[in-house]
């Protein structure tokens, strides 16, 4: 046994000391085992890295897309809603930067939904061949959107002086708002990705859902335009309202959305936890169904 290497020795002792892994059928709801997801964080990193790398490699314009996409949307919105329809911003802020500020978190959210929604089905080749916590798949496709966001954010930093918006100390809150936005996107993405494995028509539903969701978020109009009543309640319960209002507060100096943010966090927490449990429950049949 002299030829046994040191690494083998280590693993042998590991094996003796470690508790055995027991596989048996599970039914119903089960524990989330988030520690296992943490143990696979390197894979999460690599899958996110792959998504980002591939996106910029395949596109001829590469990084320019991340600039063009929100910028052109801003121009179109400004022409249609600002100039033609006179939507207004509810303050003295120019419409262009008003919509761009909302487009930043909105694109992060909608991009995450459209990528992550089909992510598990799109990773069928992995799911049926290798074991890892499946949660990593939708999470990595959401995280991959952060690079786009960062680039678009740099553009914002240039737009602000152009529109005479001063940089304020409120901007310190932006990282926190980004985390909230990512969590919002994740909470919905987890639901959609698991549902899409079970019901393939969810993927046709997602673009429609995103479109509808945008009209229920204050992206192209200020929240003040929404009349009080049931519609207003829907807007308030929509976590993206809180995120977008947060961004407008941090960048444009709109009124602080204190109470609204608490509602947002509550809704996100509920969606996120239920989404995790639903995903975990569906996860075990992914390889058989996908």
């Amino acid at each position: 046994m002299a030829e046994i290497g040191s690494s083998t020795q280590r693993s042998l002792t590991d094996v003796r000391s470690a508790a055995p892994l027991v596989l048996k059928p599970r039914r119903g709801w089960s524990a989330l085992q988030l520690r296992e997801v943490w143990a696979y964080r390197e894979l999460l990193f690599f899958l996110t890295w792959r998504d980002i790398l591939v996106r910029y490699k395949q596109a001829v314009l590469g990084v320019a897309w991340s600039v063009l996409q929100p910028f052109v949307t801003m121009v179109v919105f400004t022409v249609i809603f600002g100039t033609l329809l006179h939507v207004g911003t509810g303050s003295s802020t120019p419409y262009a930067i008003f919509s761009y500020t909302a487009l930043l978190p909105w694109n992060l959210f909608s991009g995450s939904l459209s990528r992550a929604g089909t992510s598990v089905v799109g990773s069928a080749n992995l799911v049926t061949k290798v074991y890892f916590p499946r949660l990593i798949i939708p999470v990595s496709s959401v995280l991959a959107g952060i690079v786009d966001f960062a680039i678009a954010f740099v553009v914002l930093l240039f737009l602000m002086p152009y529109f005479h918006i001063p940089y304020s100390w409120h901007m310190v809150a932006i990282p926190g708002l980004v985390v909230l936005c990512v969590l919002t996107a994740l909470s919905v993405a987890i639901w959609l990705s698991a549902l899409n494995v079970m019901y393939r028509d969810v993927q046709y539903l997602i673009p429609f859902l995103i479109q509808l969701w945008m009209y229920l978020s204050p992206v192209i109009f200020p929240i003040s335009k929404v009349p009080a009543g049931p519609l207003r309640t829907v807007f308030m319960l929509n976590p993206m309202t809180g995120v977008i209002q947060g961004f407008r507060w941090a960048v444009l100096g709109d009124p602080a959305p204190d109470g609204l943010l608490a509602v947002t966090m509550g809704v996100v927490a509920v969606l996120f936890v239920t989404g995790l449990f639903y995903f975990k429950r569906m996860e075990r049949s992914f390889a058989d169904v996908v």
Partner: protein
Amino acid sequence: MSDTVIKVEGLGKEYRIGVLKDRNPMLRDVVARSVAAPFRRLRNRGYSQGGKVERVWALRDVDLEVRRGDTLGIIGRNGAGKSTLLKVLSRITEPTSGRIEIHGRVGSLLEVGTGFHPELTGRENIFLNGAILGMTRKEVRAKFDEIVEFSEIGRFLDTAVKRYSSGMYVRLAFAVAAHLEPDILVVDEVLAVGDYNFQKKCLGRMGDVAGQGRTVLFVSHNMGAISALCSRAVLLDQGQVLAEGRTDKIVSTYINRGLDSSGEVVWEGESEAPGTEVLKLHAVRIVSRGCVTSDVDIDEEVRVEVDYWNFQPGTCASVSIHLVDKSGIVALSTVNSPSATLNDDGWSCRPHPVGLFRTACSVPPNFLNDGLYKIGVYLVKDVNRVQAHLDDVVSFTVHDTGVMREEFTGPWPGAVRPRMAWETEQLGEYVSTSAGGGT
């Protein structure tokens, strides 16, 4: 050193083939079904709607013990449950019943190059694939040079793998996998690809892994590889362990069984046989080298035999078969009507007396591609009136013996792989156009 690392007790895995075969359930179906649910429950108690969701046990009551340092070969024909067993052991899918206890880290290699991305370079894919297989970044970095050397891709390391030849692709993918150092290595039929020399190198590497006191579970149709590598073997059949023991004994059991069973469906009872009161199927079988089998070599003729009953004097019967390849594409369909055959069989589309008939079609050697083919059968009256129609009655696997692979060894696309007539001639000598000015 002989302690148990894997203990499988009463393992069962059930698949709903209704789900596997048909498309996935759509949300609209669920909505429609939940609306109809109260009524449906009244209509059919006990069995599911129209028997649509059929359940199949891919594994049943499997007991198995693997000790540290064992190299266990898992053999059996297609559908015996080998791959399912590996999938359950590597935690890809959950067991339906039973219990498995595993001591140690499992590394599974069910496919070469899982997660490889064509747009990424060789270097990038090494890290990505390593992470997917469960290696840490540190581990990959430590073994990076070894992996590159093993793969023999050298200066193409920073080229996108979509530009690789299929041989390079496989070598790189296997090189990463070969440097995985789990306590238990689970390997499915992945050596079927790649050229012979590289296969030998990989087998050698797996032998080394086994020599280091690690445990290897190895599925293959290649009995040579199983015999060379494994000390023990398990023979699976229809999801159950049929035999277990020393490799040479199990391999010979498998080979002997292979020649006399399966590759055939017979309906003994008239009532269960598919068809009408006019024509009914009796049996469908695959014959190669004079034996009924579901494994044929690529350079052997495959004979598909269809036995059928005629119950009505004067019926003009004909038979059609479809060969469907593994991707679900109809590779070919053929019918024995006189104008569609090379040789009129004398009976097709002509009045049959009452009795049992056998119609056979021979698919020439070196015509099909390798892999699985399923047979669909049509039993027809008066040219176009279908009396019996069955998809996927029997299936068979065409094994590549390498007859057409003395030069090219990569994957061979196509529903069929016939040897074709080719001609090449030289049309003239090369004259440089740039030097002569050109026309």
